[in-house]
Protein backbone atom coordinates (compact mmCIF):
# COMPACT_ATOMS: atom_id res chain seq x y z
CA UNK A 1 0.00 0.00 0.00
CA UNK A 2 1.36 3.39 -0.92
CA UNK A 3 0.74 4.73 2.57
CA UNK A 4 3.56 2.56 3.81
CA UNK A 5 6.16 4.42 1.78
CA UNK A 6 5.00 7.70 3.26
CA UNK A 7 5.25 6.46 6.83
CA UNK A 8 8.65 4.84 6.25
CA UNK A 9 10.07 8.03 4.77
CA UNK A 10 8.55 10.19 7.48
CA UNK A 11 10.00 7.91 10.14
CA UNK A 12 13.48 8.04 8.59
CA UNK A 13 13.33 11.81 8.29
CA UNK A 14 12.26 12.08 11.92
CA UNK A 15 15.19 9.99 13.08
CA UNK A 16 17.72 11.96 11.04
CA UNK A 17 16.09 15.25 12.02
CA UNK A 18 16.24 14.48 15.73
CA UNK A 19 19.90 13.52 15.49
CA UNK A 20 20.81 16.53 13.38
CA UNK A 21 19.18 18.86 15.88
CA UNK A 22 21.09 17.09 18.63
CA UNK A 23 24.41 17.63 16.88
CA UNK A 24 23.82 21.35 16.80
CA UNK A 25 22.63 21.59 20.38
CA UNK A 26 24.98 19.24 22.23
CA UNK A 27 22.37 16.62 22.92
CA UNK A 28 23.48 13.06 23.49
CA UNK A 29 22.31 9.83 22.02
CA UNK A 30 20.13 8.97 25.01
CA UNK A 31 18.04 12.10 24.69
CA UNK A 32 17.37 11.53 21.04
CA UNK A 33 16.24 7.99 21.66
CA UNK A 34 13.97 9.27 24.43
CA UNK A 35 12.44 11.85 22.13
CA UNK A 36 11.71 9.29 19.46
CA UNK A 37 10.36 6.84 22.01
CA UNK A 38 8.04 9.47 23.43
CA UNK A 39 6.68 10.26 19.99
CA UNK A 40 6.07 6.56 19.46
CA UNK A 41 4.33 6.43 22.82
CA UNK A 42 1.83 9.10 21.82
CA UNK A 43 1.14 7.43 18.53
CA UNK A 44 0.79 4.01 20.12
CA UNK A 45 -1.77 5.31 22.59
CA UNK A 46 -3.87 6.84 19.84
CA UNK A 47 -3.58 3.88 17.51
CA UNK A 48 -4.56 1.25 20.04
CA UNK A 49 -7.63 3.26 21.01
CA UNK A 50 -8.87 3.35 17.45
CA UNK A 51 -7.98 -0.22 16.87
CA UNK A 52 -9.61 -1.83 19.88
CA UNK A 53 -12.79 0.23 19.71
CA UNK A 54 -14.91 -2.75 18.76
CA UNK A 55 -12.90 -5.72 19.94
CA UNK A 56 -13.89 -7.93 22.87
CA UNK A 57 -12.40 -7.48 26.31
CA UNK A 58 -9.02 -9.13 26.76
CA UNK A 59 -8.85 -12.10 29.11
CA UNK A 60 -5.39 -11.54 30.51
CA UNK A 61 -1.93 -10.19 29.88
CA UNK A 62 -0.99 -12.98 27.53
CA UNK A 63 -4.10 -12.34 25.50
CA UNK A 64 -3.09 -8.70 25.13
CA UNK A 65 0.42 -9.64 24.06
CA UNK A 66 -0.95 -12.06 21.50
CA UNK A 67 -3.18 -9.29 20.18
CA UNK A 68 -0.17 -7.02 19.83
CA UNK A 69 1.79 -9.73 18.04
CA UNK A 70 -0.95 -10.68 15.64
CA UNK A 71 -3.54 -8.01 14.89
CA UNK A 72 -1.68 -4.88 15.90
CA UNK A 73 1.56 -5.84 14.21
CA UNK A 74 -0.24 -6.98 11.07
CA UNK A 75 -2.08 -3.72 10.74
CA UNK A 76 0.93 -1.54 11.37
CA UNK A 77 3.69 -3.58 9.74
CA UNK A 78 1.77 -5.87 7.40
CA UNK A 79 3.00 -9.04 9.04
CA UNK A 80 2.76 -10.86 12.34
CA UNK A 81 5.43 -11.16 14.95
CA UNK A 82 7.33 -14.33 14.11
CA UNK A 83 8.02 -15.53 17.62
CA UNK A 84 6.66 -14.68 21.05
CA UNK A 85 8.40 -15.99 24.12
CA UNK A 86 7.59 -15.41 27.76
CA UNK A 87 8.72 -16.51 31.13
CA UNK A 88 5.17 -16.14 32.45
CA UNK A 89 6.48 -13.72 35.00
CA UNK A 90 6.04 -10.49 33.13
CA UNK A 91 8.77 -10.63 30.51
CA UNK A 92 7.89 -11.10 26.87
CA UNK A 93 10.20 -11.22 23.88
CA UNK A 94 8.72 -10.43 20.49
CA UNK A 95 10.86 -11.49 17.59
CA UNK A 96 10.38 -10.12 14.11
CA UNK A 97 12.62 -11.74 11.52
CA UNK A 98 12.02 -9.16 8.85
CA UNK A 99 11.25 -5.89 10.55
CA UNK A 100 9.69 -3.51 8.06
CA UNK A 101 11.61 -0.45 9.18
CA UNK A 102 14.96 -2.20 8.81
CA UNK A 103 14.58 -4.19 5.59
CA UNK A 104 15.62 -1.25 3.44
CA UNK A 105 18.66 -0.58 5.54
CA UNK A 106 20.76 -3.68 5.40
CA UNK A 107 20.62 -7.45 5.38
CA UNK A 108 23.24 -8.45 7.86
CA UNK A 109 25.67 -6.66 10.10
CA UNK A 110 26.15 -3.46 8.13
CA UNK A 111 24.93 -0.31 9.92
CA UNK A 112 24.19 -2.37 13.03
CA UNK A 113 25.27 0.48 15.28
CA UNK A 114 22.55 2.72 13.84
CA UNK A 115 19.75 0.20 14.14
CA UNK A 116 18.74 1.24 17.65
CA UNK A 117 17.81 4.72 16.42
CA UNK A 118 15.27 3.23 14.06
CA UNK A 119 13.75 1.00 16.69
CA UNK A 120 13.13 3.63 19.35
CA UNK A 121 9.90 4.84 17.79
CA UNK A 122 8.52 1.31 17.59
CA UNK A 123 9.46 0.61 21.20
CA UNK A 124 7.44 3.65 22.15
CA UNK A 125 4.63 2.47 19.93
CA UNK A 126 4.41 -0.83 21.80
CA UNK A 127 4.72 0.87 25.19
CA UNK A 128 2.00 3.39 24.31
CA UNK A 129 -0.33 0.71 23.03
CA UNK A 130 0.10 -1.41 26.14
CA UNK A 131 -0.29 1.60 28.39
CA UNK A 132 -3.71 2.40 27.00
CA UNK A 133 -4.69 -1.22 27.51
CA UNK A 134 -3.83 -0.86 31.16
CA UNK A 135 -0.34 -2.34 31.16
CA UNK A 136 2.65 -0.36 32.33
CA UNK A 137 5.83 -1.64 30.76
CA UNK A 138 9.36 -0.97 29.65
CA UNK A 139 10.16 -1.87 26.09
CA UNK A 140 13.65 -2.29 24.70
CA UNK A 141 14.90 -3.61 21.42
CA UNK A 142 17.95 -5.46 20.28
CA UNK A 143 19.29 -6.34 16.87
CA UNK A 144 21.96 -8.90 16.19
CA UNK A 145 21.55 -9.18 12.46
CA UNK A 146 19.31 -6.99 10.34
CA UNK A 147 16.48 -7.10 9.48
CA UNK A 148 15.64 -9.41 12.37
CA UNK A 149 15.08 -7.76 15.73
CA UNK A 150 13.73 -8.58 19.16
CA UNK A 151 11.55 -6.38 21.33
CA UNK A 152 11.68 -7.11 25.01
CA UNK A 153 8.65 -6.08 27.05
CA UNK A 154 8.98 -5.97 30.83
CA UNK A 155 5.62 -5.61 32.54
CA UNK A 156 5.75 -3.40 35.60
CA UNK A 157 3.57 -4.64 38.36
CA UNK A 158 1.99 -1.63 40.06
Amino acid at each position, binding site marked *: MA*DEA*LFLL*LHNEMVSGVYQAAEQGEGENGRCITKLENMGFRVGQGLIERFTKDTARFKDELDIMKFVCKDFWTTVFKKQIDNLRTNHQGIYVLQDNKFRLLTQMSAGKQYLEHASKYLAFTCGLIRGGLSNLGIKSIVTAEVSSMPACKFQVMIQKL
Partner: protein
Amino acid sequence: MSRSAPRRTENHKINKDLFVLTYGALVAQLCKDYEKDEDVNKYLDKMGYGIGTRLIEDFLARSCVRRCHSYSEITDIIAQVAFKMYLGITPSVACRNSSRNEFSLILDKNPLVEFVEELPAGRSSLCYCNLLCGIIRGALEMVHLTADVTFLQDRLKGDSVTEIGITFLKKLEEKRYRRKK
Protein backbone atom coordinates in the same frame (compact mmCIF):
# COMPACT_ATOMS: atom_id res chain seq x y z
CA MET B 1 -7.44 -13.17 7.93
CA SER B 2 -10.91 -14.64 7.77
CA ARG B 3 -12.59 -11.44 8.84
CA SER B 4 -15.36 -9.74 6.94
CA ALA B 5 -14.89 -6.81 4.59
CA PRO B 6 -15.63 -4.02 7.10
CA ARG B 7 -12.65 -5.17 9.11
CA ARG B 8 -10.34 -4.82 6.14
CA THR B 9 -11.34 -1.23 5.42
CA GLU B 10 -10.89 -0.55 9.11
CA ASN B 11 -7.33 -1.86 8.90
CA HIS B 12 -6.64 0.33 5.93
CA LYS B 13 -7.91 3.28 7.87
CA ILE B 14 -5.70 2.39 10.83
CA ASN B 15 -2.75 2.41 8.50
CA LYS B 16 -3.53 5.92 7.41
CA ASP B 17 -4.08 6.82 11.06
CA LEU B 18 -0.54 5.68 11.75
CA PHE B 19 0.85 8.28 9.40
CA VAL B 20 -1.52 10.99 10.58
CA LEU B 21 -0.87 10.31 14.26
CA THR B 22 2.89 10.14 13.72
CA TYR B 23 2.77 13.47 11.93
CA GLY B 24 0.79 14.94 14.81
CA ALA B 25 3.27 13.67 17.37
CA LEU B 26 6.08 15.12 15.28
CA VAL B 27 4.48 18.57 15.08
CA ALA B 28 3.76 18.47 18.83
CA GLN B 29 7.40 17.64 19.52
CA LEU B 30 8.58 20.44 17.21
CA CYS B 31 6.31 22.93 18.96
CA LYS B 32 7.99 21.94 22.20
CA ASP B 33 11.48 22.29 20.73
CA TYR B 34 11.07 25.55 18.83
CA GLU B 35 9.44 28.65 20.19
CA LYS B 36 8.87 30.51 16.95
CA ASP B 37 6.28 29.35 14.44
CA GLU B 38 8.56 30.24 11.53
CA ASP B 39 11.18 27.81 12.81
CA VAL B 40 8.67 24.99 13.02
CA ASN B 41 7.37 25.81 9.54
CA LYS B 42 10.87 25.89 8.14
CA TYR B 43 11.77 22.61 9.77
CA LEU B 44 8.63 20.91 8.47
CA ASP B 45 9.39 22.21 4.98
CA LYS B 46 12.93 20.87 5.19
CA MET B 47 11.73 17.47 6.33
CA GLY B 48 9.16 17.44 3.59
CA TYR B 49 11.87 18.25 1.08
CA GLY B 50 13.88 15.25 2.21
CA ILE B 51 10.82 13.03 1.96
CA GLY B 52 9.82 14.42 -1.44
CA THR B 53 13.19 13.75 -3.02
CA ARG B 54 12.74 10.07 -2.17
CA LEU B 55 9.01 9.80 -2.60
CA ILE B 56 9.23 10.81 -6.25
CA GLU B 57 11.04 7.58 -7.06
CA ASP B 58 8.37 5.55 -5.34
CA PHE B 59 5.70 7.55 -7.16
CA LEU B 60 7.24 7.15 -10.60
CA ALA B 61 7.70 3.44 -10.01
CA ARG B 62 4.09 2.89 -8.97
CA SER B 63 2.29 5.11 -11.41
CA CYS B 64 2.83 4.97 -15.13
CA VAL B 65 2.63 8.66 -15.83
CA ARG B 66 3.60 9.76 -19.28
CA ARG B 67 5.89 12.69 -20.05
CA CYS B 68 4.32 16.02 -19.23
CA HIS B 69 4.33 18.84 -21.73
CA SER B 70 3.10 21.65 -19.58
CA TYR B 71 2.96 22.86 -16.02
CA SER B 72 -0.78 22.39 -15.89
CA GLU B 73 -0.39 18.72 -16.81
CA ILE B 74 2.15 18.32 -14.03
CA THR B 75 -0.15 19.98 -11.52
CA ASP B 76 -3.02 17.78 -12.66
CA ILE B 77 -0.90 14.69 -12.11
CA ILE B 78 0.13 15.88 -8.66
CA ALA B 79 -3.50 16.41 -7.74
CA GLN B 80 -5.17 13.46 -9.40
CA VAL B 81 -2.53 10.75 -9.17
CA ALA B 82 -0.05 11.57 -6.44
CA PHE B 83 -2.41 12.94 -3.82
CA LYS B 84 -4.88 10.17 -4.55
CA MET B 85 -2.19 7.52 -4.22
CA TYR B 86 -0.67 8.70 -0.97
CA LEU B 87 -3.39 10.53 0.87
CA GLY B 88 -6.55 9.25 -0.77
CA ILE B 89 -7.84 12.69 -1.69
CA THR B 90 -8.10 14.54 -4.99
CA PRO B 91 -7.63 18.28 -4.65
CA SER B 92 -8.99 20.48 -7.40
CA VAL B 93 -6.59 22.45 -9.56
CA ALA B 94 -6.91 26.10 -10.47
CA CYS B 95 -4.60 28.24 -12.57
CA ARG B 96 -3.77 31.54 -10.97
CA ASN B 97 -2.19 33.56 -13.75
CA SER B 98 -2.20 33.98 -17.49
CA SER B 99 1.40 32.88 -18.07
CA ARG B 100 0.28 29.48 -16.72
CA ASN B 101 3.06 28.92 -14.24
CA GLU B 102 1.16 29.57 -11.00
CA PHE B 103 -1.34 27.00 -9.83
CA SER B 104 -3.41 26.25 -6.76
CA LEU B 105 -4.40 22.94 -5.27
CA ILE B 106 -7.58 23.30 -3.32
CA LEU B 107 -8.11 20.64 -0.67
CA ASP B 108 -11.54 20.46 0.80
CA LYS B 109 -10.66 17.39 2.80
CA ASN B 110 -7.26 17.13 4.45
CA PRO B 111 -6.52 13.79 6.12
CA LEU B 112 -3.51 15.18 7.94
CA VAL B 113 -5.70 17.34 10.15
CA GLU B 114 -8.24 14.65 10.90
CA PHE B 115 -7.48 14.75 14.60
CA VAL B 116 -6.73 18.46 14.82
CA GLU B 117 -9.51 20.76 15.86
CA GLU B 118 -7.59 23.97 16.11
CA LEU B 119 -4.08 25.27 16.33
CA PRO B 120 -2.69 25.46 19.87
CA ALA B 121 -2.84 28.78 21.65
CA GLY B 122 0.00 31.09 20.70
CA ARG B 123 0.69 29.18 17.51
CA SER B 124 -1.50 31.10 15.16
CA SER B 125 0.97 31.29 12.29
CA LEU B 126 1.88 27.62 12.36
CA CYS B 127 1.46 25.95 8.98
CA TYR B 128 0.45 22.57 10.28
CA CYS B 129 0.71 20.79 6.92
CA ASN B 130 3.89 22.46 5.77
CA LEU B 131 5.37 19.03 5.24
CA LEU B 132 3.20 18.74 2.11
CA CYS B 133 4.77 21.86 0.62
CA GLY B 134 8.23 20.47 1.20
CA ILE B 135 7.28 17.12 -0.29
CA ILE B 136 5.95 18.70 -3.49
CA ARG B 137 8.96 20.97 -3.77
CA GLY B 138 11.45 18.13 -3.24
CA ALA B 139 9.70 15.80 -5.64
CA LEU B 140 9.56 18.45 -8.38
CA GLU B 141 13.21 19.26 -7.93
CA MET B 142 14.15 15.65 -8.55
CA VAL B 143 12.51 15.88 -11.94
CA HIS B 144 14.43 19.08 -12.66
CA LEU B 145 11.64 21.53 -11.97
CA THR B 146 12.08 24.28 -9.43
CA ALA B 147 8.97 25.58 -7.79
CA ASP B 148 7.86 27.66 -4.87
CA VAL B 149 5.23 25.86 -2.86
CA THR B 150 3.41 27.56 -0.02
CA PHE B 151 0.11 27.55 1.76
CA LEU B 152 -2.16 30.30 0.54
CA GLN B 153 -5.15 29.47 2.68
CA ASP B 154 -5.50 27.18 5.66
CA ARG B 155 -8.69 25.90 7.22
CA LEU B 156 -6.97 25.67 10.58
CA LYS B 157 -6.33 29.39 10.47
CA GLY B 158 -9.94 30.23 9.77
CA ASP B 159 -10.05 30.26 5.97
CA SER B 160 -12.81 28.40 4.20
CA VAL B 161 -10.56 25.99 2.33
CA THR B 162 -7.00 24.81 2.40
CA GLU B 163 -5.11 26.01 -0.65
CA ILE B 164 -1.57 25.14 -1.69
CA GLY B 165 0.05 27.44 -4.24
CA ILE B 166 2.65 26.09 -6.67
CA THR B 167 4.71 28.59 -8.64
CA PHE B 168 6.95 27.01 -11.25
CA LEU B 169 10.19 28.93 -11.62
CA LYS B 170 12.05 27.24 -14.44
CA LYS B 171 11.16 27.35 -18.10
CA LEU B 172 9.88 24.10 -19.56
CA GLU B 173 11.57 24.68 -22.96
CA GLU B 174 14.88 23.44 -21.60
CA LYS B 175 13.27 20.11 -20.87
CA ARG B 176 12.27 19.70 -24.49
CA TYR B 177 15.91 19.67 -25.52
CA ARG B 178 16.69 16.99 -22.98
CA ARG B 179 13.80 14.89 -24.22
CA LYS B 180 15.10 14.89 -27.81
CA LYS B 181 18.36 13.21 -26.76
